[in-house]
C-alpha cells in the first residue's frame, strides 16, 4: 500500500479495517459478537462463560504439562514439585483446579437456566443434546484430571470408576481393561491421554456444533468470573493429599460433583445399579426432554410437569450430594464412619424427590387470578444516585471486613488479592462503559 497516513490512529484504523474485511472469508464472519454496553443478566450467556473457563483450563493445563509426568512412580512427586518448588507452579495448579470446579458449576447453572426457560425447543434440539453430552464429558474430563495426582483421593475415584465400568452389563468387562491396561502403571498413562487429548478434542468438536452464532462477550462479567476463581483459590487452596498407599485406610470423599454417586455406593448396594443406573436415567431424561415436551410454551410457569421434574432433579442432586459428604466420626472404624444405612438413605431420597415434585406441580397448576400489572419503577435521578452510592458503600464495607478477617490467616493471600484486583477491574470496566454509553445517549 502506497497511501500515506497522517496520524498513527489513521494507520491503525486502516489496518483493522483491512483485517476485518479479510476475515470475512473465514468462518469468523458467521459469528455475531456482541459487546454489551450495559449490564445484562449473565444467565443468558452462562454458556460463553463456561467456554471461557474451558479456555483457561486449556492454557493452565498445557503449562502444567511441562512439569507433570504420567508415571506411577513419579506422578505424585511431580505434582508435589509443581505445588511446592516450581515458581508460579502453585498458582498454575490452583487456577487449573479451581477453574475445573467453576466449569462444572457454570455448566450445571447453564443447563438449568436453559431447561427452566424452555430453550430446548424452538429448533434448539441439536444445541440441547450436544450440550448434555458436553456436560457429561466435562465431568469425565474433571474426573480423569484429578485422578492424575495419584493421591488417596484419586485412587478412591479410580477404584469407584473402574468398578462401575467393570460391572456394567454386556460391554463393561471388555471396556474396563482398555482403560486399565496391565495395571495402575498403564492406567495412569491412559487416563493422561484421555485427559489432555481425547476428551478435550471430543469437547471441542462438539463445541463446534453446540456454539450458537450470536455470542455475547461481556468483559466485566468475564473478569468477575476469572477473579472469582482466583479469590476462591486464595481462600481454599487445593492440597496435595496423601500419596496413594494400598495398605493405609483413609476417610476420603470425592470431588463434590461425584459425591452424589459415592453416596449410592456407600449404602453397600450392588455397584452398577446403584452407582451408574440412576445418573444414567438422569442423563437420559435430559437427553430426551426436547422430544417429549412438545408444547409451544417456553415459560416454566406454563410447563408444570417439566418444571416440577426440574425442581425434583435439583433436590435429588442436593440430597445425594449431602449424603455423599456425610461422615459419622463418632464411629470407631473407617468402614462404619462411611457406611450409609440404605433404608434412611433411599427413604430420604425418595421422600424429598417426590415431595418437591408434588409441591411444585400443585403450586403451578393451582388456578391463578389475573396477575396485577407490574408497577413501573420510577426513580428520581437523585434517589437513584443515593441508592447506588449507599449500596456501593455497603459492598465496600463488607468486602473490607471480609478482607480484614481473612488477612490474618488466609492460606494464600496473594491469589486472593490477584482475584480481587481482577474483579475490581471488571467493576471499573462496567462503570466506564455505563458512563460512556450514558454520555453518548445525551
Amino acid at each position: 500500500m502506497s497511501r500515506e497516513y497522517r496520524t498513527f490512529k489513521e494507520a491503525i484504523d486502516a489496518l483493522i479495517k483491512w483485517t476485518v474485511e479479510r476475515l470475512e472469508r473465514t468462518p469468523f464472519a458467521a459469528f455475531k459478537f456482541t459487546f454489551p454496553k450495559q449490564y445484562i443478566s449473565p444467565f443468558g450467556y452462562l454458556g460463553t462463560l463456561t467456554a471461557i473457563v474451558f479456555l483457561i483450563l486449556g492454557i493452565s493445563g498445557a503449562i502444567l504439562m511441562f512439569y507433570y509426568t504420567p508415571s506411577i512412580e513419579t506422578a505424585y512427586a511431580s505434582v508435589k514439585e509443581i505445588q511446592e518448588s516450581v515458581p508460579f507452579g502453585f498458582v498454575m495448579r490452583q487456577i487449573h483446579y479451581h477453574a475445573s470446579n467453576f466449569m462444572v458449576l457454570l455448566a450445571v447453572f447453564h443447563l438449568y437456566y436453559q431447561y427452566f426457560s424452555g430453550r430446548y425447543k424452538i429448533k434448539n434440539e441439536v444445541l440441547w443434546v450436544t450440550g448434555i453430552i458436553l456436560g457429561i464429558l466435562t465431568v469425565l474430563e474433571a474426573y480423569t484430571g484429578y485422578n492424575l495426582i495419584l493421591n488417596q483421593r484419586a485412587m478412591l475415584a479410580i477404584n469407584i470408576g473402574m468398578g462401575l465400568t467393570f460391572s456394567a452389563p454386556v460391554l463393561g468387562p471388555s471396556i474396563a481393561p482398555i482403560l486399565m491396561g496391565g495395571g495402575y502403571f498403564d492406567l495412569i498413562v491412559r487416563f493422561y491421554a484421555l485427559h489432555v487429548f481425547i476428551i478435550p478434542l471430543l469437547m471441542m468438536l462438539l463445541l463446534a456444533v453446540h456454539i450458537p452464532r450470536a455470542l455475547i462477550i461481556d468483559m466485566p462479567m468475564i473478569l468477575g468470573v476469572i477473579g472469582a476463581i482466583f479469590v476462591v483459590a486464595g481462600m481454599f487452596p487445593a492440597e496435595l493429599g496423601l500419596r496413594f498407599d494400598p495398605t493405609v485406610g483413609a476417610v476420603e470423599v470425592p470431588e463434590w460433583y461425584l459425591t452424589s454417586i459415592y453416596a449410592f455406593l456407600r449404602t453397600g448396594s450392588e455397584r452398577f445399579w446403584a452407582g451408574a443406573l440412576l445418573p444414567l436415567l438422569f442423563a437420559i431424561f435430559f437427553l430426551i426432554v426436547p422430544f417429549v415436551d412438545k408444547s409451544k410454551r417456553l415459560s416454566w410457569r406454563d410447563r408444570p410437569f417439566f418444571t416440577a421434574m426440574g425442581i425434583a432433579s435439583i433436590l435429588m442432586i442436593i440430597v445425594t450430594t449431602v449424603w455423599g459428604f456425610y461422615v459419622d466420626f463418632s464411629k470407631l472404624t473407617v468402614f462404619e464412619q462411611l457406611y450409609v444405612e440404605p433404608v434412611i438413605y433411599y427413604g430420604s431420597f425418595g421422600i424429598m424427590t417426590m415431595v418437591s415434585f408434588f409441591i411444585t406441580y400443585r403450586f403451578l397448576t393451582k388456578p391463578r387470578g389475573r396477575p396485577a400489572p407490574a408497577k413501573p419503577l420510577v426513580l428520581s435521578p437523585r434517589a437513584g444516585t443515593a441508592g447506588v452510592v449507599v449500596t456501593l458503600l455497603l459492598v465496600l464495607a463488607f468486602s473490607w471486613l471480609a478482607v480484614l478477617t481473612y488477612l490474618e490467616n488466609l492460606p494464600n493471600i496473594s491469589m486472593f488479592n490477584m482475584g480481587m484486583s481482577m474483579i475490581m477491574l471488571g467493576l471499573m470496566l462496567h462503570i466506564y462503559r455505563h458512563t460512556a454509553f450514558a454520555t453518548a445517549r445525551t
Partner: protein
Amino acid sequence: MSGPSQKRRNVLRALLSAAVLAVLAPFSGLARYFYRENASQTQRQRIANLKDLSPGTAIFFSYPRTGDPKIDGDPFRQYVLLMTRDGKIRAYSRVCVHLWCLPTYAADRGELVCPCHGSIYRDEDGVAVEGPAALQPYPYNALPMVRLEIDGNGDIYAVGIDGLIGLGREWRVRSPDENVVRV
C-alpha cells in the same frame, strides 16, 4: 435404467465393495491394540515348593511376573500363597474387592484382613465374612483365586486366575478345591 449398463454398474459396485473390504480387513484385529498382552493371566509360573510352607504361613508373589519391578510391583499383580492351619494350599489375589487395598494374612485367626476398611476374608475359601466386602452381593464378595498345580516334586505353579481382580469370584460355581490340582 436397465440392461447392460446396469449390469456393468453392479459389477463395478461389487468390485468397489471388495476393494474397500480388502483395505479394511487388515485392521480387523485393531481392537487388540488396546489390551495389554502381558496382562493375560494364563502364564505358567513357579511360585514355591511345598517345603517352603508350613501351616499358617504365607508367601507374597507377583503374577504374571515380567522382571520389570515397576510392572511386578503393581497392586493388581499382587498375590498371596498360603497354607491354612489345617494344611490346605490356597492362593488369592491381594486386591480387596471393596476398595482395592491390599489385605494381609492373619494366620492366628485364619483370616485375610484388609488394612483400609477392615474387610475380613476366610482363608480357606476367600469369602468375605465381615466388613464392607461382606456386604457386597454374590459374586462380588470373594477374593479371586489363583489356579494352582502341584507337581510330584512338590513345586507349586500358578496357571491362571479364577475370578476378576478387584471385583470378585463366582465361588458357588467353582469350589476352592478345584483350583488346586495335583499332577
